């Protein structure tokens, strides 16, 4: 695993280190391929970009998009911003927490889902909205969400 990670990161570095401002594209590439950016990747990226580990760590922790622990098999993001609030997003979020048996930023009881808040998916005309594994769903309600989760499990 550790070896795989090294290979993967050095491949990404090789491809991207020449980009101007390569840090975010590199972190994105790592997360795109394994779902998160593990702690062990930090020194590798630091070395590749010739910056301190603290610098990489600082960037990694600043941005909500980057995960530092492995996500579940599926990622459920619930929009918690104003337009969705106006259409019951808070109730929807409470329902999701109960249904999955976890809080935001945690893994569901069965370990299948990561539950995350997001602040606007650009679907505000048909709020509330959620995103599962990059697919958006609008005009959501607790019943529809249950069906959606059922359809996603596996």
């Amino acid at each position, binding site marked *: 695993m550790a070896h795989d990670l090294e290979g993967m990161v050095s491949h990404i570095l090789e491809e991207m280190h020449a980009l101007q401002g390569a840090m*975010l594209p590199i972190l994105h590439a790592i997360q795109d391929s394994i779902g998160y950016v593990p702690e062990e990747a930090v020194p590798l990226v630091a070395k590749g970009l010739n910056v301190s580990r603290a610098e990489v760590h600082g960037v990694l922790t600043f941005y909500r998009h980057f995960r530092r622990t492995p996500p579940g098999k599926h990622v459920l993001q619930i929009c918690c911003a104003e337009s969705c609030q106006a259409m019951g997003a808070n109730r929807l979020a409470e329902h999701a927490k109960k249904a999955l048996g976890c809080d935001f930023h945690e893994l569901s009881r069965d370990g299948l889902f990561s539950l995350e808040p*997001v602040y606007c998916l*650009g679907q*505000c005309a048909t*709020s509330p909205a959620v995103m599962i594994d990059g697919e*958006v769903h*609008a005009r959501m309600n607790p019943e529809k969400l249950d069906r959606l989760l059922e359809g996603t499990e596996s």
Partner: protein
Amino acid sequence: MKIYVPGDSGALALGADRVAAAVEIEATRKGIRADLVRNGSRGLYWLEPMMEMETEEGRVAYGSVSPRDVAPIFDLGKSHPRFLGRAEEIPYLKNQQRLTFSRSGITVPLSIEDYIANEGFSGLVNALKMTGAAIVSAVTESGLRGRGGAAFPTGIKWKTVLEAESDLKYVVCNADEGDSGTFSDRMVMENDPFMLMEGMIIAGLATGASYGYIYVRSEYPHACSTLLEAAEILEKAGYLGESVLDSDKSFHIEVRRAAGSYVCGEETAMLESMEGRRGIVRAKPPLPAISGLFGKPTVINNVISFSAVPFILANGAEAYRNYGTGRSRGTLPIQLAGNVKHGGLIERAFGVTLNELIYEYGGGTASGRPVRAVQVGGPLGAYIPESLFDTQLDYEAFIKIGGTLGHGGIVVFDDSVDMMEQARYAMEFCAIESCGKCTPCRIGSVRGMEVIDGIASGSQQIGLLRDLCDTMLNGSLCAMGGMTPYPVLSALNHFPEDFAERRKK
């Protein structure tokens, strides 16, 4: 027969792919040669998935189509209850003034042929025959002001970059669209990406920049992949690259993904992020126009600002300037959202009133209850009560009522809203998103949540909240801390009854 089912993420979010599949199945079953076209969305989201069919009378539409409706629509045609008549005659659309969104929903987003057939690249062709200074003058004369929130005159910004001496200059498109209640940037990127890129190329010609970046929100995976494809297509077709349309001008576009930080929509935090650092706001001066990305003179504009430019160069500054009112010239793509019956995109000249938008277009709330408040301009925008719904959408008019137009988003709330909760959320959002550089924003927002909780339990005074807002208004480096008091104070001023003492659940 051509049948259109939008591929826009807003249509997909309501099941457009399943409708498209049903169309193919039904056509096969009936032995009809159906040509399924995945067009963009017209932005009438309350009617998505909106299916259109080409007929002798033009494109006719069916609204809110489910897969189950498809077979009966094939059988019944016009007499099906979902039939809306000609798409262009739908009043919500017909009563708009679409300059920037003139193609959205009509064309296939990634078809250059469609784009050119609908006036695409005529602005660029004109610009290639002009000097940089002449392009800048046209943009200045159009009266275009930045649509990202601060409403700064676009031409003046471009002039500064044009006049800056440098071997290298950049054009950066701010596509971080962080405001809740807004989706016009997303619509452009998904439904008419060439228009945005044409605007950026023109900005390059105007200012002498040959490299462009689009910093796009990571919450928009569909927009992101459309942009990547669009850039590739334009490169192959000779619009991007070493020689733009065989001229001696080069222009390249690179797409960069953001990473879920609201403050990175602030232009200097965005530059930090693009340079590979945490999104901490920079003190100005220097202006990005003088020293921006990697220290070079940089044009930074919002997606909608760039997208207004091709029209201006194609039709002349006058043609754009003739729309609007006072110092707010041209059109504003308004995004109607939240608890509203008919949510969607409404492009209108400045000057339309909130009343018209909320009731005539919006049809009131989705819940059927009375409207209590609208928040205009995103999370840093004011909450506005019904008594001010006769306000015109115009930058100055909104400043006058203590608000901002921001990026043109309107979020409607019904009478079940608790305005103290909304005020608390504004503080909470600021606490979550603050870049941490200044104390009034970083600490003040956390303190703000505590004070509001204190007001609820009767242990704190409202005066304390006002003092805190004052400190944030005056002591913050950027609008994150500096405008969070807008939603808080407007909630307090217009809805004081919600701030009475009560026991919190």
